């Protein structure tokens, strides 16, 4: 392993949430370690535990780990997959969609807000169930990008 490779490996280790790395390859041995980092969430006792309203299906939003584009909620409101209770949903998993196409609506203060796709691609996953509360920036839908 040359220095450049070594450096990129160390940087990778540093960027991830790993705490230890041990590598052995022939006569090459590398051990890396990180101090336990204080997680920022304090975790206060009993009643202080934060009830998260919609973390049930929270996906990884780390762009390194997914090939798809994550569409996030632009406001606080209720997520609806269809324009009305009796209509079919705007999209379902596997649909080919175009940039600008309506993906879902978020109702906030009795106003209907359409969420449109910023990319073209295929619907890979829908994270939120119909009628659920979403916060600002809550991941809603993942789209496998096929064009921008």
């Amino acid at each position, binding site marked *: 392993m040359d220095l450049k490779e070594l450096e990129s490996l160390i940087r990778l280790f540093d960027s991830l949430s790993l705490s230890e790395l041990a590598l052995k390859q022939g006569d090459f041995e590398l051990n890396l370690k990180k101090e336990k980092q204080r997680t920022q969430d304090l975790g206060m006792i009993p*009643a202080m535990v*934060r009830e998260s309203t919609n973390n049930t299906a929270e996906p990884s939003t780390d762009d390194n780990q997914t090939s798809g584009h994550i569409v996030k909620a632009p406001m*606080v409101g209720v997520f609806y997959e269809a324009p009305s209770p009796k209509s079919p949903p705007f999209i379902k998993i596997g649909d080919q969609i175009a940039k600008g196409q309506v993906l879902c609506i978020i109702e906030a203060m009795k106003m209907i807000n359409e969420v449109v796709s910023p990319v073209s691609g295929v619907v890979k996953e829908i994270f939120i169930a119909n009628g659920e509360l979403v*916060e*600002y920036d*809550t991941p809603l839908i993942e789209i496998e990008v096929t064009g921008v």
Partner: protein
Amino acid sequence: MFKRVLIANRGEIAIRIIRACREMGIETVSIYSVPDQHQLHVQMADQSICVGPAQAAYSYLNVASILSAAVLTNCDAIHPGYGFLSENPDFVRAVEACGITFIGPSADVIEQMGDKSAAKKCMESNGVPTVPGSDGPVATLEEAIKVCREIGFPVLIKASSGGGGRGMRRVDKEEEVRSAFDSARSEAKACFADDRVYIEKLILNPRHIEFQILADHLGNVVHLGERDCSIQRKNQKMLEESPSLFLDDDLREKMGTVAIRAAKACGYKNAGTVEFVVDKEKNFYFIEMNTRIQVEHPVTEMVTGIDLIKEQLRIASDLPLSVKQDDICMRGWAMECRINAEIPQKDFTPSSGEILFLHEPGGMNIRFDSLLYTGGEVSPFYDSMIGKIIVLGNNRLEAIRKLRCALEETIIEGVQTNSAFQYTILHDPDFIRGQFDTGFMEKKKDALLSLMVLEE
């Protein structure tokens, strides 16, 4: 009483309100912006809703998102804290339109008291002394000159919808009236989309003394004594105390009675503050009414033992005041010092970053209200005030000594703070003797800064 309250704020005041709610068995919902995800107010609430990105305009001022969050989490009341939406009458109306209680006075009162010349007119007609000046907005230069001649120089020309010193001009002689009048108007128009201005006599270096009042829906109004907030830098309060050394019992009773009259004059409900300036001859003049809980409210809590946030919650849910005027007795001397994340030596520029280590002050009659924790973040996006140390002594000197000791114990690593600067104020002979007015900081700042250098 409410079942669940949304707190439309962040930082130490959000935490303060959460604590009061929890002690009363009320559930809490916090709101936060994306970078505030790990803030203490988010972690302490029963539930938290992200309402927008870092910029306050799209998060802590985002009425639609905040109201959606309140409605969708079934909150029956919203506490606005201070700053942000706390004195915005349109927000109050929107909250009420959703069937939610706003914890504070009515939209109409906020609106009236927010309009300086309307507020002044209301007070004048109810026998509350105000700073001599024009009778409402002044439309023409001729009228402006006439008013100035009547009240005498120096005067201030101020924007009717103004605040924070913008749209404000000082005028010392008649020749300066024209240019000041014109520039105040155009600045007022630019800043507040309202070019109306009014004229007031300038009280040179007065004391800034305010009275805390509480008013319920039955028309009961009490005052909880005064706070002396004369130690200010650029109109930002730094150190507050109660009582004020400048008031004797007679003047205190007189001003307290006037404060109650002011609150009744505008039909006030909930907690509020009547601000006065007091000149060297102990003449006092109403300057404005703050229609919210204030940063320095713990000073009053310390001397009276009354929890102002709990009173706010009681009043908003139409319970009568828990105290009568005669029940209120002051004990000791309270003093508060604001801890800001800023660099005094660099003209008080804000400092932000991760808190690497925190050691809080402690002991008898020491209170530290703060958003800090070891590992937490001081955000560059919001106010630099990160905590308040409040102490209670048997007398003023004991309070000063306690505050010094508390500052000595406090360790905040990761951001720079003004605590060493505050420490120098507490050693200033004029401050210790109580010989100060709102001109104190301007006069003393450089000398105090040079003391800091010596200490390092």
